[in-house]
């Protein structure tokens, strides 16, 4: 549904739902998600036509909503995320036939797109390019935490790959969860959103 236009729900709401799924009772969560899907299908088309953003990086922890909030306040729309704790485990399902432990290991280590500290790291970067295309994004915001060196290093050469493969631009922002960084982040993200706005 997030591939579509207009966007049925905000990225910020989706992130909150995803984080809630970590701690909520599973049966409750499944019921809630099913009713939400029905509701979203019935509701009037969502408003907003700001740039569609792929938000990626190292970690988007529960409660760390500074960057997605700034993006949406600046008129951007987060249409897909790719984080170690985010949506990554949901792209494939563990097979329930045969050796379950083997299936679990296969899911964790072979099927799932690896994080940046796995080498070679190209699989995840190619996956990001695919996400950018599939979700029709207008720009990529790469958000990693200070001292996550694997992501830092990838953030240096991924913009060239992204530009070459999709023509899209990327903004890299970094955080050490310091409250004083909000202003500079706001300036940089707002500027980026303005530059990619169609």
């Amino acid at each position: 549904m997030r591939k579509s236009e207009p966007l049925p729900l905000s990225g910020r709401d989706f992130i909150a739902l995803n984080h809630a799924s970590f701690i909520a009772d599973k049966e409750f969560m499944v019921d809630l998600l099913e009713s939400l899907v029905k509701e979203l299908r019935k509701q009037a088309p969502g408003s907003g036509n700001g740039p569609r953003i792929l938000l990626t990086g190292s970690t988007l922890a529960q409660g760390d909503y500074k960057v997605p909030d700034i993006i949406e306040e600046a008129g951007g729309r987060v249409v897909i995320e790719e984080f170690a704790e985010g949506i990554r485990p949901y792209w494939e399902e563990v097979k329930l036939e045969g050796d379950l432990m083997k299936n679990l290991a296969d899911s964790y280590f072979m099927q799932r797109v690896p994080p940046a500290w796995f080498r070679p790291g190209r699989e995840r970067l190619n996956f990001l390019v695919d996400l950018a295309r599939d979700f029709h994004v207008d720009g990529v915001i790469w958000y990693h935490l200070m001292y996550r060196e694997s992501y830092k290093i990838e953030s240096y050469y991924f913009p060239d790959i992204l530009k070459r493969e999709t023509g899209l631009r990327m903004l890299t922002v970094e955080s050490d969860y310091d409250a004083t960084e909000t202003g500079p982040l706001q300036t940089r993200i707002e500027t980026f959103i303005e530059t990619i706005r169609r």
Partner: protein
Amino acid sequence: MSNYYDDLLQLCGWEIEEIENERPRIEKTFQRLELGPEDMETADAWVRQNHDVTLMGVRKLLGAWLKELIDLILAKDEGKKIVYYSFPTVVRPGMLIAASAEGTYVGGPDVILCHTMGQIFNKLTPILEAGEENGLPPGHALCSIWQVKVGALAKGIIPPPDMAIASSYFCDMGSKADDLLAEIYGTPIEYVDGTMDSAWGEYPDYLPERAEFLGAQFNQLFDKVKEVMGFEVDFKAWDKMMPTIRQYFGDLYRIFELMQADPVPVSSVEVELASILAVACTGRGIAEGAKAIKILIPEIEKRVEENMGVAEKGAPRVMIVLPSFSDPSIVRMIENTGLAIPICALDVRVQPPPPKVQHNTVGERIADGEIRGGVGLFHSSFGTCHRMAANLEQVKGIDGFIYNYQFNCRPVAQVSHSLKRWVEEKTGVPCLSLENDIGDSRSYSAAAMRTRVETFAEMLKTRKVAN
């Protein structure tokens, strides 16, 4: 015909004939390194300030590093295929690869640049800055050794390799920087992964599966060499190399023995020139280094006989982990506080326990040797702590230990505090945990560390008098 660099090269032990024979190579190298007449003046003063140039063996060691530097810089121009390995390194695979094919340059370019552009020319900063501008920015605790390598590649100083070996059995940041090489230069990388999964207290034992896994990774490396470089690794080459290697390390251990004299006869920076040369390169550096050590031994013996030394007789004796690769003034500063450094922890060798499992492949045997023997680093955090304490007990008369650890090296930095506690509890030897940077002294200069070392030195002197 003399040139602006002749005096410096002679200071570094080169003979006139050697300079004449290599003049075109020297000039091409210095041009690429952007080294001119003013740099020679700086280098002359820097070398004289930090190295004991009254010892011909020391000068020859500096010269050996310069010869290795020239071979590195010109490797591609001279039609050689190139393999780079990363630090900290398991040395034998690189040596095997080098010995298997003539015309292949195999070495650790970052360490070579630290010892030459840093220790000799005091001009490493532009290379570090280039590394910072090309993927490894400052302020992120990224490895300076890797900044040197990336910076030198970005500046076109060193040639992109045909293949690189990632030491991911020890370090994840370095191997991620290998990804950078793969993306920018298309370099094929062989990631040699390991599993440092030993419980606290488990040393020297370890799960045999660790050696099997790491060994399989080395065997994959040898397969990759065949695929990428086009030649097979000749395991019999090891037998051919062993006499040279044994001779080199045998002579090096003689220097370690001589360093146990009181007063300590030469600075630890001179010994480091010899000990790291053997792990940073596989070619001319080793051959020239071996000759230099032969010259150095009688010179040090003479000093011992004459009771000459770099510290006063009876000075507190400290063990450090390893001197800076790039800045000899740091160890000189430690010695100038009145401390004697008879040996570095990574130079202490203990007899490893016999193997518990007979491994069938070369890769497994190399892996088993590194985990079981070595200096504990490749075993585990506990292995490192245990070995540091064991080293202090093995080398008699050590009054203090300076755990001068690389602040941005995850494996050695994360153990710094537990290591200090472990060493002090097990040995009673006071330990100073000293954050530093082995390749970049811009933030960790001798001046910045002096206050802490002086305080430690005063404490050791007082303690020695009291005891």
